[in-house]
């Protein structure tokens, strides 16, 4: 038996295929993987952190915002989730490498904790994405309010969710909502997504690293 791919084995969503009603506009559901680190500002180090992050090429957006930065090793998305607290997400690489790179770049200006192995990420896209998420999400996801540079932490179906937009390049008018939930809630959250999308129909895509 071949070795399972890291992060693919937790089985949140059912196998790729169609689920629910056979509508014309099925919503697209996909599990994807991210390396994640939580960055917390050390007391009194705001200036040092700003400087260190600039040296590292790491964007530190304001509260409730997301920012993407390209670098030689891959794009990093940083979400501002609380005052002085960010979640930095990157495509999976060698275990621990992303966290080490961030931690060595920021040194004493912030505490850096790797949280990627505790997160399950889902994306919801397609014309009905907003309608599907509205069955559990209490935030206004209208593109005028929840833009491609918005990030939020909220509660959906009693599960804590980190929400941001992961739009394809050049397609800001067709939002891709990305949701990260604690890994132990992945199955329950997948159940919520399947129930919420049963009326519009869902196309389940294979789990992805992108």
């Amino acid at each position, binding site marked *: 038996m071949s070795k399972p791919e890291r992060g693919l084995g937790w089985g949140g969503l059912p196998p790729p295929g169609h689920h629910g009603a056979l509508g014309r506009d099925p919503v697209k559901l996909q599990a994807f993987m991210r390396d994640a680190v939580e960055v917390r500002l050390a007391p009194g180090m705001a200036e040092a952190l700003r400087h260190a992050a600039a040296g590292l090429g790491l964007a530190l957006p304001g*509260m*409730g915002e997301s920012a993407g930065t390209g670098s030689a090793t891959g794009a990093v998305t940083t979400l501002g989730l*609380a005052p002085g607290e960010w979640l930095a997400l990157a495509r999976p690489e060698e275990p621990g490498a992303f966290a080490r790179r961030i931690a060595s770049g920021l040194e004493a200006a912030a505490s850096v904790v790797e949280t990627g192995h505790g997160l399950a990420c889902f994306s919801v896209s397609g014309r009905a994405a907003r309608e599907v998420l509205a069955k559990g999400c*209490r935030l206004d996801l209208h593109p005028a309010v929840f833009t491609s540079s918005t990030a*939020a*932490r909220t*509660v959906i179906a009693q599960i804590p969710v980190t929400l941001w937009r992961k739009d394809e390049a050049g397609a800001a008018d067709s939002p891709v909502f990305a949701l990260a939930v604690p890994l132990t809630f992945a199955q329950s959250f997948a159940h919520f997504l399947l129930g919420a999308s049963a009326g519009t129909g869902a196309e389940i895509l294979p789990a992805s690293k992108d």
Partner: protein
Amino acid sequence: MLRITCPHCGPRDEIEFRYRGDASLSRPGPEDDAKAFQRYAYERENPAGMHLEWWLHVGGCRRALKLQRDTASHVIGGAGEP
């Protein structure tokens, strides 16, 4: 359902918050007697009107905030950082 305006996250539903008790109390010092601690730990005003409360935004920014709420009408007077 209350709609609480978190100073960090903006208006959010009550379900994201946890009530953490009376925010007008202050802990007695080491020089105070057992009666003062008894009052601090157990005795509450229970006013019908404006009340200063701790709320924890556990489903959002995870920060504590102080909220002024009318216990009779649920009107929220304001919320702020401690």
